[in-house]
């Protein structure tokens, strides 16, 4: 890498600029919010003009979209998927359920606060968020990437113990590999 402080700034700028124009979203509909993703991606709203498009596997994806409520069973898979994704990676919490449990706040099987388990960069509120709101969320994420503020993945690595403790608290049978980044 470049040692000079000023050159680093320029490199960062170019890096972030190119990252923000190519956001590949992992095709994982974790909840009912997945129904507004096809309209967002297809002809009327056409998210691809912002550089947003689908990616089939975690290793090619940049963004993990948590579309709605997360059950405990899905959370286990989502953590696995998130840890398989390669840097740079971002998490978008989609819908009220990810923020504070939404209407499932008293359900025994859904988590209430997503950012206790995964680092969330952008929340999109509403139930269901409209495609315009989804696009606005992507624009917000792009803004944060450009400013270098979308550092959820770094935070996850730094505070891994805290996240792990939270995750293991609700997932009793932890049989997942420990990744060593």
């Amino acid at each position: 890498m470049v040692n000079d402080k000023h050159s680093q700034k320029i490199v960062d700028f170019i890096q972030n600029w190119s990252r923000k124009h190519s956001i590949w979203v992992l095709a994982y509909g974790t909840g009912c919010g997945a129904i507004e993703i096809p309209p967002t991606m297809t002809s009327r709203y056409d998210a691809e003009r912002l550089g947003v498009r689908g990616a089939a596997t975690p290793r090619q994806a940049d963004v993990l979209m948590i579309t709605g409520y997360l059950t405990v069973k899905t959370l286990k898979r989502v953590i696995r998927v998130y840890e398989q994704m390669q840097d740079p990676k971002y998490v978008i919490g989609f819908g009220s359920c990810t923020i504070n449990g939404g209407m499932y706040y008293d359900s025994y099987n859904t988590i209430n606060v997503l950012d206790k388990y995964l680092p969330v960069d952008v929340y999109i509120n509403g139930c269901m968020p409209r495609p315009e709101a989804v696009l606005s969320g992507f624009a917000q994420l792009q803004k944060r990437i450009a400013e270098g503020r979308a550092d959820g993945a770094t935070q996850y690595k730094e505070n891994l113990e805290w996240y792990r403790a939270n995750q293991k608290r609700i997932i009793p049978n932890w049989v997942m590999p420990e990744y060593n980044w």
Partner: protein
Amino acid sequence: MKELKENIIQRLKTNFADAVAGSEFSYNRVDVHVKKETIPSILFYLKEEMGYVHLSHISCVDWLEEGEFELVFIVWSPVDKVKVFVKTRLDRENPVLENIDMIWRQANTYEREFREMFGIQFTGLVAPDEFILEDWQGPPPFRRDFDTAEYAKKTFWNRPGREDAQDVRETISGRDGEEIPDFAKKYSR
């Protein structure tokens, strides 16, 4: 329609001694209460002899106060155009019923669910133990004595301000240079 329904009841009563007609007669439905031992034979009779070929639904109701589970089998005949509700009661302490998935194959899925959610055992059911839940350690969750709100409060965090949505308003005001719009202030408590 009324004659047809009484005919069905009569036919079931003559063949099954413990069949008792329910009080509900409206909306092209017939209710029959039987003992749990009769369930496989009455359902088989309805399907093979009377043309009730379609199993529409199986449901389970927890009557906690009476210490019983009620199982409801809803079958439908495309010829008679009548729904027959076959109901039976199981003891809540030791709920066991005979497996009926050789009569209707889709009953298998229902039985797996009831085994997991209510703890009802079906003798002769061949299926993996887990259906919906994974590594569940509590009591069967759909029983009425299981308090889901209490469990959720204990297990998952609630975001502070969940009750009065204060955090949402603070987030709105905390965003770069934005203020709480007037319409939102109006709803502040």
